[in-house]
């Protein structure tokens, strides 16, 4: 790979670079605050009110409230931070991964069991590893 790739034009990828970090600071810090049980309780009591503690944009607030996982990334979210909301919701990384590409959790799980996706984001569709182990 001698040709230098443009890191901003990798398909289906929202690189957490300086611009996204600048825009997403409060969004990400709001997500991370859910590491603490007392904050999870406050978020549970009133999500919108809890988010008032973080001066984020209207679009960012809406993306959090709507669990718009791709929207959060576009607006400066980093996946390790936005996943704190998924942890709060008790949904798995595979459910969140599926939601980001229009799949159910089971469909996404199946993509992973059949070799994942290629570099362009297309499912590889290999033999299911669980079935292979049975045989």
């Amino acid at each position, binding site marked *: 790979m001698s040709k230098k790739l443009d890191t901003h034009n*990798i398909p289906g990828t929202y690189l957490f670079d300086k611009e996204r970090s600048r825009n997403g600071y409060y969004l990400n810090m709001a997500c991370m605050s859910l590491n603490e049980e007392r904050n999870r309780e406050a978020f549970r009591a009133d999500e919108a009110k809890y988010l008032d503690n973080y001066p984020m944009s209207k679009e960012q607030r809406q993306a959090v409230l709507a669990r718009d996982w791709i929207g959060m990334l576009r607006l400066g979210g980093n996946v390790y931070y936005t996943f704190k909301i998924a942890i709060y919701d008790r949904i798995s990384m595979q459910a969140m991964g599926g939601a980001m590409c229009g799949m159910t959790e089971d469909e996404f799980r199946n993509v992973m069991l059949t070799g994942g*996706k290629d570099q362009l984001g297309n499912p590889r569709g290999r033999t299911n590893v669980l079935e292979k182990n049975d045989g």
Partner: protein
Amino acid sequence: MARLVGGVGTSHVPSIGAAVDLGKTQEPYWKPLFAGYGPARQWMNDVAPDVAIIVYNDHASAFSLDLISTFLIGVADEFQPADEGYGPRTVPCVAGDSKLAWHLAESLILDEFDMAIANKMPVDHGLTVPLSIMCGQPNIWPCKVIPLCVNVIQYPPPTGLRCYKLGKAIRRALDIYEEDLKVVILGTGGMSHQLQGERAGLINEEFDINFLDQLSSNPDWVANISHEEYLMEAGSEGIEMVMWMTMRGALDVNVKEVYRHYHVPASNTAAGLIILENNDVGIRK
């Protein structure tokens, strides 16, 4: 001196830790992965190191966007498991080696690696999952641990080459340490995976296997893999494989690959593990 006897590269996928904690390792989904961890645990048990240096990254647990350290060393005598949102993992507290850690910090900084130094920090799955992989579920971890935390979340992480050079500096510091200790070093993270965006679910077995193939015999080549290639080929989160290069840099130029395991998938990730030994160390003495 502190004798560095070997290095381990391993994934640190959180669901691997959850499978251990929740007793799921013999379920069909997890069984093949954990079957491959058996020989690695045997190796760790046979080597019985005094100290493991674990190169890992924090995932918005101890550190946030408030403070992003590219390289950080933990110098405390104790590190508690972090609450990552589920409550802390029910694993033993991690005992540090404050004296060796401070020696490393001092040596590395004077060797022009400007480390951040942490006296207090919780450690998340990035550090505790590799311990579970290598040690199972003991009541106390069998060795002391020096956490070496690398930023790989905010782009850009340090280059693979920089991580490799840091490993070489760690080795220089170990070689002049006054106490006689047996040390192993773990480089963690990866292998190929992407957690975010429409391309979430990327796995690149060809890239991973080539990485494993070249790691022992051609480390300079692996160290020069660019960020662009990691991002495109190994995924936006696969770029954390730069941390394996610190492990590799600390070892001898000539090493012996003694074990390898590769399995897809562990959740959204290609799980890899490799064990490399230095040649002339009397590893089991």
